[in-house]
Each structure stands twice: as C-alpha cells, then as structure tokens.
C-alpha cells in the first residue's frame, strides 16, 4: 500500500484553517497614534487650495486643540474674509465630530485659526472645511487616520 492521501488532505485543510486564522489576527485594531498632520488639497470643485495643520502637533485623541487653515485660489492668491464652516466625523461609525469647531480668528494672508477641534477616538476621521468667498462656495475634505 502506498501514499495515504487522507493525511495530505488533512494537512492541507489544517494549513488552510491556520492561514485564515493568521490573516484574521493581522487585521488588528489601528493603534492610537500621535500624528503630525500637514495636509493640502484642492477643494472638491477646484475653486480653492486649502491647507490645514494642527497648531501644536502632535494631535492626541481626546484633547481639544487648534488648527490653522490656509485658503488660496488656484493661482496662489490668498483668500481673506472667507466664511469657513468646519464639520466632519467618522464615516465608518456614522457619527460626526464630538465638538463644533469654529473659526475664531482671521490672521490675514489667507490664514484662519480654527478652535475647538477634538477627535474622541483613534481611527479614520473625515475633516471638512466649507469655504464661502466671492470666488465661490466649495468644500475641501481631508481624511485623517489617528
């Protein structure tokens, strides 16, 4: 009598299950990091170039902090006097920001201070800046991973 195929089938089966278990383990939760974000992007309809950065990085989960926002037109001219509303949330969890951040100062040269930002947990956050100025109404959306 020769090779017993039942053993091979059993081992292949075991290895497949082991591989599945191993793969599941690698999908561990995202760590609570302390990132230093500097982000810049064109608004959804291409009206503005919006750059955002935390005033005092690193950004820590659960702490109230301030962001600096710079708004320019596509040809690089700073946009002052814009009305900016800040919103966002965690799309995966269906909830918004835990606070209502507001622009509290216009610093000139297209720069604005946004106070009252908080991220209450680690994970993927959406951070939205709706800009309203004579050039038009547009929104820049940033995706942050904490």
């Amino acid at each position, binding site marked *: *009598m*020769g*090779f*017993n195929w039942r*053993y*091979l089938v*059993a*081992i292949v089966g*075991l*290895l497949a*299950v*082991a591989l599945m*278990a*191993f793969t599941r*383990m*690698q999908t*561990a*939760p*995202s*760590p*609570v*990091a302390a990132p230093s974000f500097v982000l810049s992007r064109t608004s959804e309809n291409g009206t503005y170039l919006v750059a955002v950065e935390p005033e005092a990085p690193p950004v820590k*989960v*659960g702490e*109230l902090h301030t962001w600096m926002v710079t708004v320019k037109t596509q040809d690089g001219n700073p946009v002052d006097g814009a009305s900016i509303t800040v919103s966002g949330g965690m799309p995966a*969890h*269906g*909830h*918004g*920001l*835990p*606070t*209502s*951040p*507001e622009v509290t100062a216009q610093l000139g040269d297209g720069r604005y201070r946004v*106070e*009252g930002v*908080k991220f*209450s*947990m*680690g*994970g993927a956050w959406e951070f939205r800046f709706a800009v309203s100025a004579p050039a038009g109404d547009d929104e820049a959306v940033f995706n942050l991973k904490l």
Partner: protein
Amino acid sequence: MIHSRRILPILPAAALLLSGLLGCKPAPLTEAERKAVASLSLSALPPLPADPSNRYADLPAAAAFGATLFFDQRVSRDGNVSCSTCHLVDRHFQDDRPLGVGISTTSRRTMPLAGTARSPFLFWDGRRDSLWAQALGPLEDAREHGGNRAAYAHIVKANFAARYEHIFGPLPDLSAMPANASPLGSEADRAAWASMSEAQQDAVNRVFANIGKAIAAFERSIVHEKTRFDRFADALAAGQEPADDAALSDEELYGLRLFVGKANCVECHNGSRFTDDHFHNTGVPPAAGLPEDLGREAAVPQVLSDPFNCLGPYSDAPPETCGELRFMVKSGPELRRAYKTPSLRGVADRPPYMHAGQIPTLEAVIDHYVRAPASPDGKSEVVPLKLSDRERAALVAFLKTLSN
C-alpha cells in the same frame, strides 16, 4: 507506508501551530495590540490638568474643607444626606443601587468618582461642565440633599465660618437674608429668592459656588488605582514577560484582544480611564417607571444656561480656556438619548449598569451590545456583533482585570 511515516510526525506540529493561532495557546501580541494596551494603561495617564474655573482646585485647605462638607449630613434639608450617602467611600464612591437614593429616589445611577476631575462634562448627560458646578446640582435637588443655597450659606456661617473665611475670605452678612431661598426649588424658596436684592443673591451664589469649589478640590484627589491589567501593561512596556500579579490568564488575554479588536469596545472605552468622555446613544432601554429621558439633548440647554458654568460670573476662568463649553455640539440628532461613556475601571465590582441601572450584570451588558437593539428614541450607534459564548466569557474575564 514510507510516505505516511514521513508525513505523520508533521501532524502534531501542524496541530500545535493551529491551536496556537486559534488562541488555545495565545500567540504573542501584535505591535498594534501592544500599542492599544499601552494606551489603556494608567501609566499613560497625563498629570491632572488644572481647572482654571476653580482657583481653589489645588489648595490643600480647600480640599480638606471639601472633604468635611462631602461627609457632613448637615449639608441637606433633613440633616440625613451627605454626598457620601450615595458616593460611598468604601464602594468606589458609588452605591450599588440602580438609582441613587437621597431624600428620595433619583432617576440616575450614582457614578463612581475616581478620575471624574478629568471629565469635561459631568453627570451621565453632561449637564454641568466642572466638578464644582456638578457638586451644586445634588445639593438643591429635592430628591438628593433637598436644600437650597441660602440655607447652605447659613449652615456654613453657623458651622464652618473660620474655615470658610480662611480659604475664601469674609462671609457676607446673612442677617437680613431669608433662611431658605433659591431660584430653583419650591415655590416658597423661589419667592424668597425673588424678594432678595441682586447684591444679596450674588453674595449667596458666591458662597454656594465656593461650597462646590471646596468639594471639587477634595474630589480631585480621588483617583484610580493600578490593577492587574496595569501591571500587565507596565511589564509589557518594559519588555518583560508579565508574571505573578502582572500575569493575565489565557482567557483574560483573549478577552483583552477582543476588547481592542473584534468587539470594538475600545472605540468608546479608550484611554487610561476607558472612556472617551463623550455621549453616545447605545440603544439602552428606558428604566421602567421613570419620566421621559432625552439624555444629552436635554442637558445641552442646561449647561449653557447654568450660571455656574465656565463662562459664568462665578467661574475663575478666562473665557478662552472654556473651550469644551464654547465648542460643544449644541444640536443634532445624535444628542437624543446619548449618555456619557462610563469608565470601565472597577466595573466588575459595581453592578448594575447603564445610566439608570437598567442592566444587572456584565454578561447582560455584553449581550446588549451583541444584539444592538434599536433605540427607543433617537438612533443607536451600536451595530450588531457576532460573539461566541467563549468570546463573551473572555471579555468578562478581561474586564475583571480592571479591578483589584
């Protein structure tokens, strides 16, 4: 036969590998799991931040006076209720009841006090924005201490004048003030309050606020103690194998992995205190016999209009330091029946659970989150989860490592 002999010895090795991966013998924690463990450890807790709204917050004499007030039953309408009636010192400053009982039964579960000085908003619904403003609420609640601010000013003058004045300066002249008066409370109390001059009202409010500030100074000293989980986390961070009273059993370790992984508990129960200090609708059913309770939605106008809030005349804070109040979410559907995420430290020692003690055991709490029932009002943030009996038991085992 030759082939089988070669393969047979591999079987035990494959079985061992498999059992290891499936959790019978736990695999080492991943880097992400280690980071999550470190973030939950008490060692990650930053120093207690200052409370700019209470200039006496870190004054030892104020804390000592606050401790006296906290345990003194004279600070009540009937002389039978103190803060420690519900916040029992040997029970983690809670009372093991579904609903707190002062002069009569309240509508909320008594919260333990450790670490509450770090919460931006107090009470289950966050209707106060500091520990000292919180302390004033039960003092005038008819179901709790049942007193009124004018009576408390008289009590302080009669019993603690020297200690009070040593800390806060001269007490006002109370001789012309009514024995009982408050803008809240009974009709008679409110009428008496209305009969007082603005200066008299302000003087009484100031004594009342200082009572709260002293109690808050005392409560700031109530902190969490390290438990086996923290010793485990410390050993892990030091690169040591957690042993003896720092070791977790295989089941507890499995529960920890579920907590930070598949079961997603850590989404809200995060940081060293196992809370995000935020408000969530988790579909907890109302307690039978209680009036409608909208949670955070009803609390927002209360904290905004509270004269003892961070921006009010009795706060010592420069307005720019009142960020939590200024930038809090003031409206939106997510506020309805949203309640604060409680800390899970010591949780296994203090059933029942939820804001009105609706759920009797930890097992039943986990069952609630697995089922994720729809909220009776508003929308629950919780999504259903599949957890085996073994996984549920492991989560409970892990939660017990947060107690001593």
